[in-house]
Every structure is written in C-alpha cells, then in structure tokens.
C-alpha cells in the first residue's frame, strides 16, 4: 500500500509537471491527496476483481496495477497508451489489470458498474467490482438510479465515494444537505464514512464491503473523506475558492506521511527502506516518462479502426 501511494503521488506530480510543460494535451485531473483511497481499496481486491474509475483516475490505475508506461503514454496521446491514445487522461481500460473503464461523465460510471456487477453475478464469478466516484456524483440521477438498481438486484459492487470536499469549486456543504453516507443508506444498503487520509481505515472498511459483495450480500456505500491538493485540474490551484490555510491543514494530515510515520513508529520499516522505495519509484517514473516521450503518436488509420467492432 505504501509503495502504491508513493507511485501514485510521484507519477501524479510528474503528470502536473508534464501538463504544465505542454506534453500532456487536453485535461488532466490530479489525484494528489487522495492516494490512500485507491491504495487501501485495491489492496483488498484480487487481480481478477474489477474497478470502474472516473476522470480523476490515474491513482486508481496505479493502485490496480496498470504499468506506468501505459498510463503516461495514454496521457500523452501516444500509441503505447492503454487505449492506444484514443482515450486520454480520463479514459483508462486495462483488462489484464482489472480496470474495466473510466468515464469522463460524472456519475456515468455508476450504472455501467452495475451492469459489470450483473455480469459477474450471472457468471457466478467469485469477484466484485468497485466503482469510484466523487462527492459531486452523488447529486446526479445516475448515482441514485445505479445504486438503487444494484441494491434491488443485490449485486457484487462496492460504491466508493471519494469526498474531496469540492465539485470543481462548489463545496459539499452548498450542494448537499444530507450526509453523503445517508445517501447510500437511503437505498437500503450499508453505508460507512471513513477517514480517507488513513490508508488503514480505508483498508479495514474495504475489507468488510468487498467481502460482503463477494459473499452475495449486495452492495455497500463507502464515503472516504479526503482532499485534493490541486485545483480541479492540473491547470488550476484551487485558490479561487479555497484558502491556503485549509489546504495546509489537510496537507498536515497527508496520507503518505501519516502511513510512513505509523510504519516507522511500529518499526515495520526503516528510514533506509523508505528512501529505497522512493528512489526506486522515482526511477520508474523517470523511465516511464522517457518511454512515453519516445513513443510515436498513433498513425492516422487509428482514427477509423475502432468506430465499429
């Protein structure tokens, strides 16, 4: 989990740098600050378990085991990308890693994940699907339609709401009167609110929810309270609607630092081992950047190849 979080962070820091330098076109929504959620959830999942992600999904891909070369190549629109450069930052699919799809339409992944779960159930597979979305998605009709349908059909899906406090600029307090966890519960399924800055808390809650899904007991709603360090996109500081003080307060509870301190305090890891992990991860990220930068753009024939199957 620690290594996953470090990779998520270092890769994302590089993404922001590459974005600002003009190497990543279009949009990119950084995951910095939210790493404990992807790491904690995916640590419970098996390789054959699936995830459905969203526009802020680089961390999910890392945590589920997508090679960083494929992630960065996709972000740069290169031919070695997960989706051959046809998807971009907001669209990830790597079936080997269990990343089914990530949608760029807020809430849109929820009904789709319900269909994936339906297929798993009908195939009598021992697996489940985790659907990641943000606090903003809980205000969409797709959320309520999807969660309700999964509840009624008792499907093997876990709904993970990453409450990073803002839907672009609008805080949760101005868009939602109910607590988010009540929204899951309102559909007749268990809901739990956890500290999304604590990877161990996320892991513990995920263990219960995922085991419930796999036992055929139906969906669970998890609200993971977290914070995104950047603005909505890599282009944005978020200081138009947030104070530096607020950002600093959340950063003081940084999920990676917290976990590092815990591991050190319990003598599960030495500072040398931490430094080795960081150095190795940094090298992997640098190699992935070089790999992606050296890859060609897709040839023009890709434009028409996959319109029809």
């Amino acid at each position, binding site marked *: 989990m620690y290594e996953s979080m470090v990779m998520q962070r270092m890769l994302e820091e590089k993404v922001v740098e590459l974005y600002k330098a003009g190497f990543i076109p279009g949009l990119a929504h950084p995951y910095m600050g939210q790493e404990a959620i992807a790491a904690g959830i995916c640590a419970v999942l098996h390789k054959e378990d699936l995830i459905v992600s969203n526009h802020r999904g680089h961390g999910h891909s890392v945590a589920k085991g997508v090679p960083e070369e494929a992630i960065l190549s996709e972000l740069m629109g290169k031919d070695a990308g997960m*989706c051959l450069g046809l998807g971009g930052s907001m669209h990830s699919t790597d079936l080997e890693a269990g990343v089914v799809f990530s949608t760029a*339409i807020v809430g*849109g992944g929820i*009904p789709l994940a319900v269909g994936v779960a339906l297929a798993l159930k009908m195939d009598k597979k021992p697996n489940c699907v985790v659907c990641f979305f943000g606090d903003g998605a809980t205000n969409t009709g*797709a959320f309520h339609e999807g969660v309700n*349908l999964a509840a009624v059909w008792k499907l093997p899906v876990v709904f993970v709401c990453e409450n990073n406090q803002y839907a672009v600029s609008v805080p949760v307090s101005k868009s939602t009167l109910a607590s988010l966890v009540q929204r899951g519960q309102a559909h007749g399924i268990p809901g739990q609110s956890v500290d999304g800055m604590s990877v161990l808390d996320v892991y513990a809650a995920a263990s219960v929810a995922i085991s419930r899904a796999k036992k055929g007991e139906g969906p669970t709603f998890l609200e993971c309270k977290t914070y995104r360090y950047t603005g909505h996109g890599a282009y944005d500081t978020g200081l138009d609607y947030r104070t530096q003080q607020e950002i600093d307060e959340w950063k003081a509870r940084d999920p990676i630092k917290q976990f590092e301190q815990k591991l050190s305090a319990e003598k599960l890891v030495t500072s040398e081992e931490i430094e080795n992990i960081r150095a190795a991860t940094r090298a992997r990220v640098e190699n992935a950047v070089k790999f992606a930068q050296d890859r060609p753009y897709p040839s023009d024939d890709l434009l028409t190849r*996959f319109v029809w199957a």
Partner: protein
Amino acid sequence: MKTLTYAQAINEALAEEMRRDEKVLVLGEDVGKLGGVFKVTKGLLEEFGPERVRDTPLSENAIIGAAVGAAIMGYRPVAEIMYMDFLHECGDQLVNHLPKMHFMTGGKLTAPAVIRTQYSLGRNTGAQHSQFFPSLYMNTPGIMVAVPSTPADAKGLIKTAIRGRNPVLFIECAALYASKGQIPEEETLIPFGKADVKRPGTDVTVVAVSRMVGEALAAADILSSEGINVEVLDPRTLVPLDTDTILESVKKTARLVTAEDSCITCGVGAEIVARVTERAMDCIENVVRIACPDIPAPFSPPLQKAYMPARDKLAESIRHIV
C-alpha cells in the same frame, strides 16, 4: 411462410435468440410478468426465468448503463425503453457511453447491446409520447439504427442486431405492432445497410421510413391508377444507410421524395437529400421531404391528423413533381 403481427415477430425473434445463446438477456420496465406494455416480451419470463428477463425500476439511465456494463462483459443485453421519448432520460449512457466504448478504449471493449424502443405517433399520446427522432442517433457515431416497417423485417433485423458486435438502437413503431405480415418459416437474418425495394417503379423514388413505408405503398397504389409509377425504398437501417441503392433509384427516376414521422428539420430526409445531392446533383429534377412540421405532437385527434404525414399528403406531393 406464416402470418405474424409485427409485435409477435419481434417476440418470436427474442425467444429464438434467447434459446440459441444463453448470453442474451432482456431487461427493462415491465418486460417480465406483464410481457412489456406492448406485449413484445410476452412469455419470455415464463420460458427463461427472472435471471434473464429482468423487470427494472423506473430508471432509464440505469437500464442502459446496466446494458452497457453487461455487454462489455460478454453479455448480449436487449434493453427496452418503453417510449422513444424516454431515450432522453438515458441520453448519457445512450450517447456518451454505449456508442463510444469500443472507440475510446482502442478496441479493448465491445458493447453489443440492443436498445429496443418504439415511437407512438398516431396514437393520440401527446407531445411527450409520440416523438420519432432517429436522426439524433445518425449524428452519434458508434451506434447502429434500425427502423423496421414489416414483421419480417423486424424479426430478421433484430436477430442480426443481437448477434452483431456493435450497439444497436432498434426503433419499433407502435402503430405497426398489430399489423400482420408473412414471415419465412426458416431462420432469416436481414443484413444491416441493405435497403429493400418494397415496390419497384420508374417515375419517382420514395424513400420511406418505418410507418411511412406502408403509407408510401398505399400512395403508390392510388397513383398507379393515375398512371404514376412509384418506387418505394425502405432503408430498414439508417445507420448504416444504404446510399448506393437510393442513388441507383434516383438516377433512374430523377425525383426523390423522403417520407418519415420525424419533424422535418435535420430529419432523416435532410440527410438523404444531402447525400443524393452531393453525389448525383445532375440527375435530380425534384426533391420533396414529407415529414411532421417543426411542432410538438398535438393531442387532439383532428390536430394530430393534420400534423402527421400520410398517404394522401404523400400522393399529392408526388403529383406535383411528376
């Protein structure tokens, strides 16, 4: 040959495909015990059980989302949206997700879901239960669009749709559900993108869509007694659209009439006329589009009659250009 109604033909095709392939499943509002509000899924629950014939909550976006998710996992869902008007309730899954799964993922996913729906113009159901807007989806690359006009076409096309690898929007017509037609006893699959010459003729080409095919044939009967020889083409699928067969016919007749139950602006006829004009401008003497005016469908029966395209209006337009 046997005689079946349009609704029975689709029902028979669904049952045959479900028997043939256990990955075919049916979901939608009231498709189970009720057999669909138009009885198109009648008997499927009894034969195939509640796992494969699923009544859903009133959640169109979740119905199509579930179909997309199941399709990318290897199922062949046939989802029913009760009225075409309700497609706007699931526009996100229908437009932003389903048609783009294969493309956006660089071919890693395929989504062979069939979305069945029907339009009800002519049944006095008012402005929110009458609309027919297939050209919206002709403007959405990645989803095929079928518009069967006869029981045999409906059966053959839906079988092709279910077995194909692409998403299909299958638009039925409620006014046709009770219409009867001959169906081959042996299994018949009708290819997409192949227009059917419903009546050969030499003086004018009428490209008619769905319910208007029957109206065009009736208009052709009226006009034949006046010495006007009408060719009626039924494209059967709008995506892909068999432009070649239309062009071939227009090159022969030099007159093109399109007929559909959509509103006229940016309708199916607009696209057909544009394609023919681009490729055979020299051959065309006259072009007429017969469609609904750009007005929401009215409720009151006399107003609805005035609003809808029909055989007499079609015949009158043809007389003007021949």
